[in-house]
């Protein structure tokens, strides 16, 4: 039998054009990055197993499971609250690993359902001094420092598209960093929405591997 070559490509391969976009300004107000090569597993506590799941998370990742509306950094992974009794575990893809749930199966056996979402979502990172102003056009969630500090997560909608939105550590220039996980099939649409919203501030676009973030 003939073997075929299967090239892996991001659903945003055509949409994301690294370089500058939007207004011509000395410093881009918004920096957009598509983060590629990540593993994403949804961990959903089974009925009545919330405490047991929280314990298993602590044991496996070495940190407390994220409280509601929180995202936490753990050993080699970011844990993002995604709704009652559920969270997402995001990590850089390990070369040669095809089934990220395999590494978790033992820890969550019988207490939580695991679902591999790695290729089901795209991850877009937004930073820059105008990132918050840009996002304010797209979401009704209040992103002010006082209500949406570093480590806050929201399961919400952007442009009628379901997203997981969370804030990670500020970038070096002190500007906030927001992350959006979006269903792959909606990624192209939401990418263009974001680029349109950011155009007036000037945009710097790049792609990055999750391992380098």
């Amino acid at each position: 039998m003939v073997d075929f070559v299967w090239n892996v490509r991001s659903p945003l391969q055509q949409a994301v054009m690294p370089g500058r976009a939007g207004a011509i300004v000395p410093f881009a107000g918004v920096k957009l990055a598509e983060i590629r090569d990540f593993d994403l597993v949804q961990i959903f506590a089974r009925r009545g197993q919330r405490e047991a799941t929280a314990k298993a998370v602590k044991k496996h990742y070495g940190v407390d499971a994220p409280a509601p509306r929180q995202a936490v950094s753990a050993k080699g992974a970011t844990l993002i609250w995604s709704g009652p009794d559920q969270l997402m575990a995001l990590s850089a893809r390990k070369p040669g690993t095809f089934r990220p749930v395999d590494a978790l199966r033992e820890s969550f056996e019988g207490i939580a359902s695991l679902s591999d979402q790695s290729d089901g979502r795209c991850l877009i990172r937004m930073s820059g001094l105008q990132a918050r102003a840009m996002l304010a056009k797209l979401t009704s969630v209040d992103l002010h420092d006082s209500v949406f500090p570093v480590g806050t997560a929201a399961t919400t909608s952007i442009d009628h598209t379901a997203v997981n939105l969370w804030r990670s550590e500020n970038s070096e220039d002190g500007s906030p960093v927001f992350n959006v996980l979006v269903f792959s099939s909606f990624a192209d649409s939401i990418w263009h929405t974001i680029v349109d919203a950011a155009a007036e501030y000037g945009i710097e676009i790049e792609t990055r591997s999750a391992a380098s973030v």
Partner: protein
Amino acid sequence: MRIACPFCGERENGEFTYLGDAKPKRPFVAVIEDGKGAEGEQDAFYEYVYLRDNVAGEMSEYWYHGGGCRSWLVVKRNTLTHEILSVAAAPGTGAAVVDVAMAKAGTE
């Protein structure tokens, strides 16, 4: 109008979908050997499926947070003023709710 989801916090109503009155309960129907329904069963189902009160004032309603955490909620709302009096997770909608019930049962 905004709804304070017990899981997500306050969100715009565009994230929610309205189902309707949370009061009607599905009639309980015992299985009867001869295959005939119980007395009044059809009327009870007719009422459950079709008849709704047109409430002017406080009302319990089902809302679905589909644009957010995908939880079903029971919202007490004043239909005249749109004032929202309370929001709670709908019973039986998820593990969290069951946990709360279990925790309560444990303390009693």
